């Protein structure tokens, strides 16, 4: 049986980090309880549409742990119905250093939470300041310790490289600090300049100089090497785990398995439909109260779109695409559909053929998007035209079928 994930978005943070484009706002003066009631209602509706059992829960955001204790308690009790204490499931809550008082953590563990995903980002103060993070480096070990003291079994630590001003040595230091803390799981994200963020604006005003691409590549390779030798195995482009400690909720995404998304701006993937909720707390509450859900965008994925997304996600995994499973999930025979791209990248060393499919190589991981884009494009690029035909351009791929293009005007 396929896994079914549940993602809950809590759109509150203490303050906004410079690079962040998630939907989150300051927690002060916000209608928290009405929001939690709406979350519960949306969840109930989704479960009616696609009954469990839920195999993983991830409460993210935002920073769920900024919720005051009573509200956090309320939130957890909403989740009671999907948590079965006899059959433990992976239950993760996202947190930031400095937001995890033991009382709150205690409350979480009692509700069944067994994993904390901690946004550490860096162990160097100037880098944290560059990112406009609120915490200091020494709050990271303290928070990890708090988690341990209440019995949290697994801790994910997120780190960031490619920060303006960061050096290779500094990055490796952060990695080693993380390793020394003995966390089970480490994610290393290259800093991305998302449109509309404060950091991007500063870059565009030339107030900061982005990290050199060559250096960023070195940092990435250093992470793979250093973590590997410390016993963390890479299982996805940015994710590393000790044996048996991979984050199951993340795997739901990368295997392109169904996931219920609940909350403002949350996205979900149910019955082949990808949907996204409205990114506004008040509108979200209002919509859920009226209609039980708050979807603003949705798309039924079929044919080449479904195959394309599955490629995009599965190639991120170290185990890559498994042809038989891919065929079952998408109805597309990857070996044939992507024959040209596979041949091209196996030849240049970005892809390797595995027992049952293909996967990125170490060099290929640095160029994942280039490879993925070629895969996605392969069935979309026009079919061979008949000799002498000049009409090729009138054809367009739609839902996996070739259709005459309708004129723009």
């Amino acid at each position, binding site marked *: 049986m396929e896994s079914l994930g549940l993602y809950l978005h809590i759109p509150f943070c203490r303050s906004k980090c410079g690079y962040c484009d998630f939907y989150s706002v300051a927690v002060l003066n916000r209608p928290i309880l009405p929001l939690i009631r709406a979350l519960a209602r949306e969840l109930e509706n989704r479960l009616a549409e696609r009954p469990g059992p839920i195999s993983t829960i991830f409460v993210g955001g935002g920073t769920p742990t900024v919720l005051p204790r009573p509200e956090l308690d309320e939130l957890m009790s909403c989740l009671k119905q999907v948590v079965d204490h006899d059959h433990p499931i992976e239950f993760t809550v996202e947190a930031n250093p400095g937001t995890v008082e033991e009382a709150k953590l205690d409350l979480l563990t009692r509700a069944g939470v067994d994993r904390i995903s901690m946004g550490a980002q860096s162990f160097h103060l100037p880098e944290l300041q560059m990112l406009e993070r609120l915490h200091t480096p020494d709050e990271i070990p303290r928070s990890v310790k708090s988690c341990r003291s209440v019995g949290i079994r697994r801790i994910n630590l997120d780190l960031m490289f490619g920060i303006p001003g960061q050096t290779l040595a500094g990055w490796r230091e952060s990695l080693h600090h993380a390793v020394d803390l003995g966390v089970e799981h480490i994610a290393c*994200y*290259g800093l991305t300049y998302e449109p509309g963020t404060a950091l991007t604006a500063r870059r565009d005003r030339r107030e900061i100089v982005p990290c050199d691409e060559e250096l960023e590549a070195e940092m990435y390779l250093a992470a793979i090497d250093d973590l590997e030798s410390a016993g963390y195995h890479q299982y996805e482009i940015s994710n590393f785990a000790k044996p048996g400690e991979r984050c199951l909720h993340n795997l739901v995404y*990368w295997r392109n398995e169904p996931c219920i998304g609940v909350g403002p701006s949350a996205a979900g993937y149910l019955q082949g439909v990808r949907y996204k909720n409205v990114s506004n707390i008040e509108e979200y509450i209002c919509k859920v109260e009226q209609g039980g859900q708050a979807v603003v965008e949705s798309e039924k994925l079929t044919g080449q779109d479904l195959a394309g997304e599955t490629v995009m996600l599965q190639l*991120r995994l170290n185990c890559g695409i498994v042809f038989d499973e891919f065929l079952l999930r998408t109805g597309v025979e990857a070996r044939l559909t992507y024959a040209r791209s596979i041949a091209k990248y196996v030849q240049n060393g970005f892809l390797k053929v595995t027992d049952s499919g293909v996967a990125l190589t170490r060099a290929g991981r*640095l*160029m*994942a998007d280039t490879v993925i884009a070629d895969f996605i494009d392969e069935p979309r690029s026009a079919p061979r035209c008949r000799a002498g035909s000049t009409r090729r351009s009138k054809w367009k791929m739609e839902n996996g079928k070739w259709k005459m293009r309708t004129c723009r005007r």
Partner: protein
Amino acid sequence: MHDSNLIRNFSIIAHIDHGKSTLADRLLEYTGAVTKRELKAQMLDDMDLEREMGITIKANRASISYKYHDQVYTLNLIDTPGHVDFHYEVSRAMAACEGVLLLVDASQGVQAQTVANAYLAVEAGIEIIPVINKIDLPAASPEDTALELEQVLGLPAEEAVFTSAKTGEGIKELLDAVIERIPAPQGDPDAPLRALIYDAKSDPHRGVICHVRVVDGVVKRGDKIDLMGVGSTYIVTEVGQCMPKPKALEVLRAGEVGYILAGIKTIVDVNIGDTITLSSRRAGELLPGYQPPQQMVFCDFYPGPGTETAELREAMEKLWLNDCSFTFETASSDALGIGFRCGFLGLLHMKIIQERLERESDVNVVQTAPTVTFEVALRDGTVMRIESPSELPDMSHVEHIGEPMIDTQVIMPADCIGSIMQLCLDRRGVHKKTEYLSPTRVMLTYQFPLSEIIYDFYDKLKSMTRGYGTMDYELTGYKTGDLVKLDILVNGIAVDALSVIVHRNKAIHRGRRLLIRLKKEIARHQFEIPLQAAIGTKVIARETIRAYRKDVTAKCYGGDITRKRKLLEKQKEGKRRMKQVGSVSIPQSAFMSILDPGD
């Protein structure tokens, strides 16, 4: 009853943006030709592109009635474009008129096209009414502007009419002046028909609309007419006037301006400047026609990705039938395939034609850098004209290369003269004259190679004069220069569509600039790409595009998934719009990068 004394024909001419089309709005509104409700800003500008860009591209007309001293007059006005590229539209319009309103923006003063257009009117020998417009602007100095007109063009300041096309002030005085000062049309209604086709337009439903000025005789529905120059015969299906919507009339008589429909299929069947006469009673002599507009700038249009040559050809033919102010013929390039070498009246004209092609026919156009015609003298004594660097024969056969020269008038604030003279010098300009229009404004006359000013001189002039500088130019002939062909090699492959002909002294500088531009335009690939500029086999500049090292999305979770996929699809789509040279993808914009002559 028809009385040519009750007719006035005039054009509105001015420098670009001085308010011609807006003034036409006020005239239409004041005389009740359109109601307030129907009126929209610059309503005679009926092309989408004109409305979007806020400029007039084609001349437009309207006939309005105006009561003066208890008599109803018919005023036929033509709104003309101000941009230098469309000069020919102005001369055509004037041949249908007895007078012009010469508009000057009271906050800007006399500008280069004010002078150029006024000279056209003087040459045509028709009445000029100076109109000082935009007097409502806080920065307006109407009296000084009138004095400037007097100083520059000898038009007495006291004859000027002061208007605001925004508030409507002075419109009545202007209409009165039109009646009092512009002569009524002459012409003999009893003589054999002679009507000048001063403009023609194709209409999808009604065929070709010939806009005419009836010089002698009368024409009416059912008449059998001859186009004298072309020698073809048609039956008139409708005559009328634009009010501004077309309105059918019984007849058009000597002195009147109006339109004729005669079941003419395409615009190629009509020669603008031709004379229409009656088959049954032919006029003896043709009216003086027009010089065809002269193409000054050339570039290639190649089918962009997703477009086939045949589709582009179809699109170009269709547009040409609507607007034959540009020329085109088949051309080919190693890098870009089969396309068309096109000639334009100027850079704006080029942009407009490209835009119209893409919009009206849903084709994708890759455009090469504009160039001018060169005159190449071969050692065997033959002389050839080439419109593209790729047509240049092997240099060992070439005796010398000549390039087109222009006389240019530049008007600017006097305090800018130093920097502008330096700019002119950099562009191989030869100084001819300096004239002061007033203590603070000056007009320079220079001779330039056309190639030096055609691309960005105007923009430079604008920025160096805080927007006040204006210019006008006129082709004078060809002159031999020390010109060489500069080739550009991308990853070792010479890209013919990127070659340019330049003056030897500027080759290195130009080559370097070009490579720097190209480096910005061409995205990094998975491998290193050398860029070189060469004269013959001698490399004079080089640059390298580094290979990229990292192309990977860091985070990909629930909400990002579809967005990321679409982003990747879009990138690919963008790449497909590029041209493939060897294994390098070159974006269309790179082919325009030669535009930057560099300094």
